[in-house]
């Protein structure tokens, strides 16, 4: 299908009923494969973090439909990018029925090498003569070797597979399996996940072909084109309603984990008629630490995620809705790094970048404005060995507050804007597998930014350590707090505090690797809140009283921020 073909003829050849039936059909196929993968995968990245996406891509490599679940950064057509590279490498004529291709190449996807797209061409018709698209699934492979986060460049980060056939004409290529199996620390888990990814591709392929055959291939193409055009028209209508102008915002990341220099994130959003441009010219350059990403994997991805939050939150993701989005992104920035740059923690800047784009547009459109969110992955990991020598390794993370808006108080604690349906790990489970006892797990008083509407609260989690172990933490945005909007106050940033049993002053830290803890030590993880919205003095007295009664704010904060007296 050619994107440049005549749009009006597409509109007239398909009736509105068949169109809706095909639209429901496409989304339900991706959602069903999504559910299958969630349940069959071996690795927690997939079933717990939903670190995957299922999509159907047009024959020229553009996203036609994607599952509703999955991680936000994947809405940006990570699957289409990989398919376009495959088309470039093989050409359509060498992508046969029964071929299965994998790609995790940094020069293509521009993310850490774990994110691996697998796809298979969909041929339909009585003799499978028509290529109608590709069924593609992006999955976070649990391990592809490499030394991230200590990597100096991408070659330190593991195996790169650039558009490699894993199956050819319905037969597995055992040599490629052997390469993969011998370049991972966890072959059983990885091969299990690949099996589930493969089963999803093949089942999705067959269901999509059946859908197209049922209504006829020309009708199917016509429906797809109309769906994309309607998505585009809906997005343009939304943008047209925004005031033209150039809007700027910025924040700073603490550092790249390598040396302690703030990293500027400066963004311009330009509204002109029915187009929205994200201008990343003011971004920091590529960093030595592994917090870089490529043009598609970083720049396009973050711009599209922010665009979806702002313009098209309810529209299914497809290429059409993103057509009115333009990107200005010079080479060599933190989001358009050279393919050789280290990318192990590529998504670290994403929550802040997305939030800054939202902040910029919020200056133009008060009803879209929100206070900043805590915006950091807040990694927290305890690892070591039990007395019998067996290892333990507990990955935990902070959930923090989200910003308030003209609609009301902020929500949370949630994970960041680069996360979605990611659930925290139950404390009872953690206590059963790690040498810890949780002393307290509460909402963090006074962590939210004050305002007519208050931000959401962060949490306070107190770990009592019951055996010697090592701590790794990765909190950012501690020096540039989540901002208030429209006169609202900033929120508190997050922090980690260690109280050693042996005595001495409490140790406050943000990023630490291999920090020694002993039985009896106490570690307090406090996460940031969300920024407030509107001047605090405009907050309803009943709301202040309620927040006091609930302990969301202290008496001192009530007096200081809201001028509250009994």
């Amino acid at each position, binding site marked *: 299908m050619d994107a440049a073909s005549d749009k009006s003829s597409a509109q007239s050849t398909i009736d509105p009923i068949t169109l809706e039936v095909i639209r429901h059909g496409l989304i339900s196929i991706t959602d069903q494969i999504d559910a299958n993968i969630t349940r069959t995968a071996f690795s927690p990245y997939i079933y717990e973090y939903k670190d995957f996406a299922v999509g159907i891509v047009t024959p020229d490599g553009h996203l036609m439909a994607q599952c509703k679940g999955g991680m936000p950064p994947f809405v940006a057509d990570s699957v289409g990018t990989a398919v376009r590279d495959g088309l470039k490498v093989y050409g359509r004529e060498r992508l046969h029925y029964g071929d299965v291709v994998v790609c995790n190449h940094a020069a293509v996807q521009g993310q850490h090498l774990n994110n691996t797209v697998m796809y298979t061409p969909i041929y339909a018709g009585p003799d499978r003569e028509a290529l109608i698209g590709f069924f593609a699934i992006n999955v976070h492979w649990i391990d592809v070797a490499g030394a991230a986060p200590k990597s100096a460049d991408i070659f330190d980060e593991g195996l790169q597979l650039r558009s490699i056939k894993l199956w050819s004409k319905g037969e597995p290529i055992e040599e490629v399996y052997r390469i993969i199996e011998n370049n991972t620390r966890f072959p059983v888990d990885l091969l299990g996940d690949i099996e589930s990814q493969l089963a999803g591709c093949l089942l999705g392929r067959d269901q999509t072909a059946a859908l197209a055959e049922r209504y006829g291939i020309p009708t199917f193409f016509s429906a797809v084109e109309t769906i994309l055009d309607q998505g585009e028209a809906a997005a343009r209508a939304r943008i047209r309603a925004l005031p033209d102008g150039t809007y700027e915002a910025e924040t700073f990341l603490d550092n790249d984990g390598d040396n302690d220099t703030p990293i500027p994130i400066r963004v311009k959003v330009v509204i002109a008629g029915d187009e929205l441009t994200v201008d990343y010219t003011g971004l920091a350059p590529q960093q030595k630490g592994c917090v870089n990403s490529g043009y598609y994997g970083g720049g396009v991805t973050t711009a599209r995620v922010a665009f979806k939050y702002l313009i098209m939150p309810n529209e299914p993701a497809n290429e059409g809705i993103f057509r009115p989005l333009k990107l200005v992104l010079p080479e060599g920035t933190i989001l358009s790094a050279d393919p050789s740059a280290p990318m192990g923690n590529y998504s670290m800047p994403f929550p802040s970048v997305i939030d800054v784009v939202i902040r910029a547009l919020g200056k133009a459109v008060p009803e879209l404005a929100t206070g900043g969110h805590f915006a950091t992955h807040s990694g927290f990991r305890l690892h070591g060995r039990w007395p019998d020598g067996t290892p333990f390794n507990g990955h935990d993370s902070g959930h923090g507050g989200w910003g308030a808006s003209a609609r009301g108080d902020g929500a*949370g604690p949630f994970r960041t804007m680069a996360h979605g349906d990611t659930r925290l790990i139950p404390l009872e489970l953690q206590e059963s597998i790690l040498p810890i006892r949780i002393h307290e797990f509460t909402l963090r008083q006074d962590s939210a930014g004050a305002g007519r509407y208050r931000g959401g609260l962060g949490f306070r989690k107190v770990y009592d350590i019951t055996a010697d172990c090592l701590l790794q933490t990765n909190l950012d945005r501690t020096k540039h707090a989540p901002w208030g909007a429209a006169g609202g106050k900033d929120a508190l940033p997050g922090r980690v505090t260690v109280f050693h049993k042996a005595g001495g002053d409490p140790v406050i830290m943000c990023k630490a690797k291999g920090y020694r803890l002993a039985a009896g030590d106490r570690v307090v993880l406090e996460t940031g809140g969300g920024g407030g919205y509107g001047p605090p003095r405009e907050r309803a007295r009943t709301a202040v009283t309620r927040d006091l009664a609930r302990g969301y704010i202290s008496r001192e904060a009530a007096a200081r921020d809201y001028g509250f007296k009994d």
Partner: protein
Amino acid sequence: MSYVVAVDIGGTFTDLVAFDHDSQNVIYTKSPTTYGNFVDGILECFAKARVQPADATFLNHGTTLVINSLIQRRGARTALVTSKGFRDVLEIARGNRPDPFDLYYQRDEPLIPRELRFEVPERMDAKNEVITPLDTAALEALAAELKDLGVEAVGVFFMNSYLNPGHEEQAAETLRRLLPETYVTFSTELTREWYEYERSSTVAANAYVGPQVNTYIRRLESEMQGKGFDGSLFMMGSNGGLLSVDRTCRQPIGLVESGPIGGCIGAGAYAGALGFDNVVAFDMGGTTAKSALVENGRFSVESVYYVNGYVKGFPIKSPVIDIVEVGSGGGSIAWLDDQKRLHVGPQSAGSTPGPVCYGNGGTEPTITDANLILGRLNASRFLGGEMTLDIEAARRTLAEKIAEPLGYGGDEGLIRMADGIVSIATVIMAGAIRRVSVEHGLDPRDFVLFCYGGGGPLHARALAHELSIPTVVIPPEPGNFSAIGMLLADARLDLSKTFVGMLEGATVGEIQGQFAEMEYEAAAALAAEFGASEVTFEHHAEMRYRGQRHNIKVPVSGLADERAIRAAFEHDYKRRYGHADPKAAAEFQALHLSAFARQRRPDIARLPRAQASAGSEAKRPVYFGGAGGMVETRIYDRDGLAPGFTAAGPAVIEEYGSTTLVWPGDRFEIGPMREIRIQCGVK
């Protein structure tokens, strides 16, 4: 006379079915649901049916009281008591955002606000050691405070109590003693499974609805007894079994899906009687459609249920039949968005104002309006002639709101859009059926489609086509089917327990010990509550490959060794996911025991009411889309069709409260239980 009576309180009507074991007579009545005091509506039904409460030996009762109270937030003033440091577990929840791109996403407020959540010093660790004993002095002081605050209900939740409920029991006992007027419940009397948020959310919900359910049930009992009733009252549990009054009062959360369960039980009972192993039960009402699977006579029961849905709602750990629900019902509204894309539902005109054709002020075109325009409903005989439908109003509205804006003028355009609305609804409803089947690794084509509810029989044939299901069955009385199902329910009790261990010889022995304890507890409870002497059991283990996070529920009854359990696990795993790994280690996560005590059931063959009507010779044009357009179609009166009757489609079969559509090329016959069986013809 010796009646067994089922009463189902729905949003609009209270339905009653009474079966007399002596005369084998069956009586159906309906009366408007009486908000304020539901008991009045029940007594009205008894009066209309001319059944003396004194003649009823059993009364089985289903109600939407619990789910309505939770969703409308009409429960008691409730406090939560937790271990020190954990009162916010209920509010923090799991920190996920199921709607990822909603910048303003908020979860529903917790049932119990922070100012009514209290902590007491107490702590067990993950090895079942007491770290901090329960501080009884603090608890006593708290009791006084709760009294001053006018709290009507208290839920108690402590960390790691799944391992040892001792502190929770002790705290509940103390609170009950000090606050005799207050409803007190604790998490481990509801579930022995781990995960603190899910347990605290469950006990919060149970406390929240406790006082209301207790008041309602005691009032029902006393008013019925006042009318001479001295039989047994049982409640319809979400697990698909009857619950005793005492258990319901302690665990009202067990009624959360009490309403729609009856139909599933009925579908299971008919499937058994008709010799079908596998049935898709499909129920379509005014606002939603629901689907559940019956496989070899059994339902799949899920152990977690989200009140108000997964996206915004909260979980309760309580066994609930696995029902998938979608927002498609007769009242679902067809509408165009600003890109002129046609949508059907999930908004519904409900029963008031209802579809445009009801003439009660409905202004938006609905699925029912579309069916009327297509000739599938009888404008003059709706609800047995109690209502006349305004077809002209339906046509006008559909033309103005949908057909003309989309450029479909005239009669033909109108018909095409009406058919389209039904087609889109069919795709959505078929999605619900696919979700309950395909995701469990089952192929809907291996099932019989069993349809009831007001709208089920009308859409059954199109659904069968969409899913390639060859056989459709419409039971007698599809409009009363939920109450019929309640007549056929057995007593059921579910117990569950977290049990973590590898699948190996030693743990298998341990599991048998655990199940034996659970069986003893369940049998004793059913004996006390139902006088049951014969109790049967089903055993399930939640299992997974080591390292996975999702469990599957494997039937393990009678499996005595590691190899047999391994085989059962791999069989189910493979069926569901298409592959299994014979080398990977497997582990247990939880044990579930279901205990059943059979109740005296009516003979299903006797349940259709006596046939009065003679056959009719009427015909009218009905639209069949791809299957022939507007076709002159024979209209049958279901009451006039005797078992053994058979005819070719197209046909419309009308009865009180429902209409069955048979396509051209199909054959239908009236079966031994007076069910309609449609053999779907070539597409």
